[in-house]
């Protein structure tokens, strides 16, 4: 499926927002959240550039499943490190372990449902963390209400990540054409939510 100029523009805007977040939006945070958010938005930036260069063909690469896991895992780790001090180490171990598990189950040919199970589990936990944690923090007044936008971004990335991952796993939830049609807009919307949520929702 050929990528339209509009979709390229949406991806360019996504890349610019991600670049802003890496360069400016995370200044002043602790070291680990800075590293985690740099990885998340950095992957988003490079992935956006490659999609612009190669078109949707870039999604045919087997690395897409792994890459689409890095973003939610890194974001969730950053959020937990910032706001759930008692879970820092355990979540970091989960993030690294989850990433390795997905990389392993994607690299070695396996029968059965283990690869799908690992994918759904890791994506599910990371996605729920990004969705629930900012929403709860905004609702209980710990953070400004606008911080809930990060949660909305989390819901969108969870959706996008699952769509892409199951598409790559050969078990698409919706048809490939539909996913490709909505993907650039979904990525932009998600990035707007994150950048705006982090910016407006700061203490």
């Amino acid at each position, binding site marked *: 499926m050929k990528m339209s100029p509009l979709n390229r523009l949406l991806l360019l805007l996504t890349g610019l927002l991600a670049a802003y977040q*890496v*360069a400016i939006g995370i200044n002043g945070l602790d070291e680990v959240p800075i590293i985690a958010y740099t990885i998340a938005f*950095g992957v988003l*930036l*490079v992935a956006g550039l*490659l999609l612009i*260069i*190669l078109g949707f063909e870039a999604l045919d690469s087997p690395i897409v499943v792994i890459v689409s896991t890095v973003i939610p895992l890194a974001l969730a780790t950053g959020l937990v490190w910032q706001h759930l001090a008692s879970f820092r180490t355990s979540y970091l171990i989960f993030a690294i372990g989850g990433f390795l598990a997905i990389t392993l189950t994607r690299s070695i040919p396996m029968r059965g449902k283990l690869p799908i199970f690992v994918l759904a589990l890791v994506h599910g936990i990371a996605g729920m963390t990004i969705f629930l944690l900012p929403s709860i923090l905004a609702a209980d007044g710990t953070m400004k209400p606008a911080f809930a936008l990060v949660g909305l971004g989390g819901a969108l990335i969870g959706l996008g990540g699952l769509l892409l991952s199951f598409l790559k796993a050969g078990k698409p939830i919706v048809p490939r054409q539909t996913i490709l049609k909505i993907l650039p807009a979904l990525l932009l919307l998600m990035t707007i939510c994150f950048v705006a949520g982090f910016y407006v929702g700061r203490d």
Partner: protein
Amino acid sequence: MNHQTPITNHQLPITTFRQLWTLTKPLQSGLLLTTGIAGYMSAHTPPNFALLLVMSASLFLAIAGSTILNMWYDHDIDAKMRRTQKRPNASGELTRAEIFRGGMMVSILGIGWAAAIQPLYGFVVFLGWFFDVVVYTLWLKRRTCWSIVWGGISGAMPILAGRVLAVGEVDMIGLLLAASVLFWIPTHTLTFSIKFFDDYNAAGVPTFPSTYGFDTTRAIIALSSIIAAASIGTASVMIGVQAGILRLLIVLSSGLLLLSFATVFRPSERVNFSLFKYASLYMLISMMLLSI
């Protein structure tokens, strides 16, 4: 111009100018000019827009002049390659004499202007021209695939020239910036020589893939990408760019390195093409970031 003879495309100045313009490879020259501007801005001296403007004009003319002269000499090679045979130098739309005159005029104007702005800046601009026209084009391009090293040194001169104009000397940061361009160029040209392998072979131009094979060429691409990224990173730290800009440079460099390693371990036409495109984008964005 002889007004008694019938007017053809060759004799219309606007048409000739337009065709000469295509021979300057505007995108490539523009990218090299961007590196020159970045070199100047990297000094973070109080902005002198008038100086920046004349620097840009003189540098662009010198780069464009050397590119036109390269086209003048390589007309026979361009005529043999499918990718280039429609260029005015290969198709005969411009005569060799016209191209040579145009190239020399633009070169003299650019280098002369550069020397008038500041002698050391002018000398570095001249070196870039000399390495490109004399060493790379006239001497080595048809003899050895290693000619691209000299082409690379020539391509590294604009950023050094910009830096020299700003700080008044050749300093370590300038040399590191030049190294970053020098080692970025193989990433660009070698992926290109893999993509157009048959074209270069048909024209009899020695390239790394035809001399050392694809695997070695891909390994060199990966190695040069690492050195280019390291040079830009070191120069950025020495310049004292903000932490956020440094993070962004690390992210973009990681993309370059990943693609370079992908060409080694998972070689394909698609990976090669994406590295070629990404490398240009990487250089453009890196230069913009160094200017901030």
